[in-house]
């Protein structure tokens, strides 16, 4: 009923409402991605359609954020050259460079 129409929201846009956070640009694997201040790296990547963040050690499976609160370490990415940073615990900053384990 109310939920189906989706209102003015663009289909596929995961951002809620008209956010007022300042726009920032981060680089993900060398490609620019638009984000808003106040978002975590995990959130910004998700909104950018990037779910797979790392490859698991033994099976090489693609993994994405699970707990969202810094416990599970499934969202480890390289941020500004520093490896194994938790995407869910790191707020985005303008010109931040993020690298995921791409296939």
């Amino acid at each position, binding site marked *: 009923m109310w939920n189906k129409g989706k*209102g003015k929201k663009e289909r596929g846009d995961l951002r809620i*409402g008209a956010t007022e956070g300042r726009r920032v640009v981060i680089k993900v694997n060398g490609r620019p991605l638009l984000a808003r201040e*106040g978002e975590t790296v995990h959130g910004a990547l998700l909104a950018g359609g990037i779910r797979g963040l790392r490859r698991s050690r033994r099976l090489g499976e693609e993994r994405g954020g699970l*707990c969202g609160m810094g416990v599970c*370490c499934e969202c480890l990415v390289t941020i500004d050259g520093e490896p194994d940073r938790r995407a869910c615990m790191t707020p985005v900053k303008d010109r931040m460079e993020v690298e995921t384990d791409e296939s």
Partner: protein
Amino acid sequence: MRADYFDVVVVGTGAAGVGAAYEFAGQKCRVLFLDENGHTGGQLLRGYGLGKRAPGGKRERSGRPRKDKEKGLGRFAGLFTDPVKGRRKILADALGRPNITVMQGARVLGIYPERTVCIQAPRGGIFNLKPRFIILATGARERFLPFKGWTLPGVISLGGAQILMKESWILPGRRTVVAGAGPMVFSLGGAITRNGGEVAAVLDSTGPSAKKEFFRQWPPQFSRLKEGALDMATLLASGIPVRQRRMVLEARGEGRVEEVVTAGVDPSGRKVPGSEKTYSGDCLAVGRGFIPNLELPASAGAALTYRDDLGSWVVGVDEGLETSERGIFAAGETTGVGGGGKSLVEGRLAALSILRELGGGGASLEARRRSLVKKRAAELRFAAFLASLCRVPEAAFEELDNSVVVCRCEDITLGEIREMVAMGFHTPGQVKKACRSGMGNCQGRTCGPMIQEIVGRLTGEAPDIIPPLGARPPVKTVRLDALAAMAPIP
């Protein structure tokens, strides 16, 4: 600064920390609050916390969208429930007092003998403090049951999905399947809907009979009933299927969740034959209640005990919330998961116990303490009800394939765990040494509790004799260069 500058160190500024801050505010003692997060207020007040200015100055990160974005009955949500408003005010008042210091983004790496707290400051420097008292309010994390495909990107915890909305203002997916047990499935389903997201279905593995006990709670849980009714109304008014006694069998997709296979489940945890139903979606939010974060208390030497009524290991405490270690108190979810109400009461109680020893707290201290002890008993009864909803069913692992990954960090499968148990490794600690489960980045925080349950099922041993994974400092991952640069212990 001298190592004994602070009289009290409180680890965690969630609901229990807020309670402690309320009692310590303006008293004659110096209190330091530490929180790993960049905000105060813990998970409940995430997005409401203070100390982090909202971007753009004006934006209210309330976790609830602005009115014009709300749909259906959710439009009226703000009128009836704002469970956090009061706590937010307490926090604001208390944190402004001169006797209270807050350090955000600080991680406690361990607690050594004689209450030596090893802290890593936000910039990476490591130092020690020696307060007279410590309150451990380390909170809880989500409990999971593994299933086929639960490692696919797009499978997220219920709490994780809520955090995305509260903190980043981002929906967990375009179309989300919400599944698991406990009140959180309904609150998340309601929140996604109110924020304009699509929910494919809300699946709860328990049945109506399990929830009857809610109405026998004394004192009656009016505010919680109101919250639940509101979420339910949002879901039903939006035409979202809400199904009880259903569980997730498998998440499927190429490199990410595309569809979710579910089935009816009986109380023992076995699937009902022929009841499979598949939902499409790009996100699956799952969770089965919460378990206490025991690593720091355990590393401090506090004795852990198994509480049958809460179905989990907890930090053992006396009536005043002191642990087996003199001067170290525990409050909130670490003493048994019961939600924000219990944590708030326990944070206050622990603070009053400390104030009594310090000789402060005013004339009414004893009366307040007695009333809090009573309130805590009521909260523990509610905690037992929550635990009854989230208990892991007897046959939870029986029908699971050997290929299902249990330890996500080290990629250890259920088959390997079964093999280790068959070889005679009968605690999570032994299984870890035998096959590396729990040795990865999360240090067994995710798989450890599952392995406890698996070992229990396979050996037939009671949960109270299968201890959780041991924990030694550093209990958080820390870079070696940070440790190397550490100032020597005075």
